[in-house]
């Protein structure tokens, strides 16, 4: 089951597919971090500075590729390392149900 979930997360993040913040997920920027809460939940999730920038881009419907591109412009880091880090954050957000694939934004093939 774990490997199956991993597979689907990789699928979801592939090919520049647009993501969006899931319905019923609330977020709030406070001091230097972003707090995230599901309407149904009582557990707060927290993102620090760079994580907050990723969250901001997700609010605009960004894909993994787009987020990596934007952050690569802002920070001098090894692109493959950056992509691995962003991918890990997004995979975690997906698995926590905080973001989802934005099916409506996918152009028909």
């Amino acid at each position, binding site marked *: 089951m774990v490997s199956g979930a991993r597979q689907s997360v990789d699928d979801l993040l592939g090919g520049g597919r647009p993501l969006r913040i899931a319905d019923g997920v*609330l977020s709030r920027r406070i*001091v230097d971090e972003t707090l995230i809460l599901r309407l149904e939940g009582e*557990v*707060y*999730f*927290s*993102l620090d500075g760079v994580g907050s920038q990723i969250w901001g881009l997700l609010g605009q419907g960004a894909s993994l590729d787009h987020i990596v591109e934007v952050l690569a412009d802002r920070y001098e880091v090894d692109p493959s390392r950056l992509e691995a880090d962003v991918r890990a954050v997004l995979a975690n957000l997906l698995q*926590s149900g*905080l973001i989802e694939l934005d099916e409506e934004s996918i152009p028909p093939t």
Partner: protein
Amino acid sequence: VSFKTYDEHRNYWVDQVKIDRYRRALAEVLEPGATVLDLGTGTGLLGLLACEAGAGKVYSVEFGPIATVAHEVFERNGVLDRIEIVRGMSSDLTLPEQVDVVVGDQIGGFAYSAGVFKFYADAARRLLKPDGVAIPASFELAVAAVEHPAARESIETFATPVAGFDLGPIHELVKNSVRTVSLRDDSSLLSTPAIVHTQRSTDASTFRVSSRLTLTRDGTLDGLVGMFVADMSPSVSMSNIPGHPDMMDRRWQDFFPMGRSVPVRAGDHVVAEMAVNPESYLTTWAMTVEGADGRTTREQHSTFEGELLDLAKLRLLARRPVGMTALGRAAVRAVADSSDQDVDVARVASELAAAMPHLQRSEVDRMVRSLAAVLASGPPGEV
């Protein structure tokens, strides 16, 4: 402090409509000798009414020291032999038997905001017989567009500089906060109240509502007012909607601000959308004003953005998508080690207490309860 407390309890006794509706509902529902759970007895009002209606045994639960007063009131009125006063929160309570009827008055302006769904759902799971009855049995929730200059002023105070200082951060908080208003008649309403949702009182699940309101007069839209009709028993109702035939004497409602008040005209439409978690009281609301000229204005708010958050404490509870805090790991490990359904709360508490020696035990307990509530609805996605 005492006088304020007595005034609060006085308010429960002076509402003759409310007393009448509880009295009639209990008379309609109670079989002779029935067992009753009186949630939040205060000075004893509902316990007395239950005995009057023929209850054989009443468990009167009260968290505060007012329980001592209830004891004396019950004794003075000759019903103490049928009452067992239980000190504490109903959520921590166990009883020697399941009861026939649960009755309480934790009803907020928009019903859920004083905890009724959350307390009743818990009572129904553990303390009420499977075929037991709750009073009120269900709630119809209503919303209306409202013009309320005093509520507007309490928000707009912070919209522009005060004494030359920018108080924007306070403005953000207040426009995302729910406040109580007291509408004595329907003169403040800009639309007819619309029933948007019905929910059983023992159901604390999250609900979403949407309604397109037609404005009935020109004015300034300051927000939405949330109200209810409580279906007490098959033939008894009680409401806080201005002008409703079963309107209580206690006339207050919940006000959800627009945030930026706008002028509106009769015939304009306001699409009101809300989502409510009755367990946490977390509420989001949005208003879209559709003017006759085709222009729309949309405002969206949530109590999450209006909460005064203690960041230091939240950090202890927050789950970081990458790299969980040591504390979170300790807590989640303790939970993960326990069996699927039964979270070992005592163990989590001791792990947390060890990890946070600076915290009061009561704070640790509160966090554990919150964590346990989440885990009870399913294990976390990633541990």
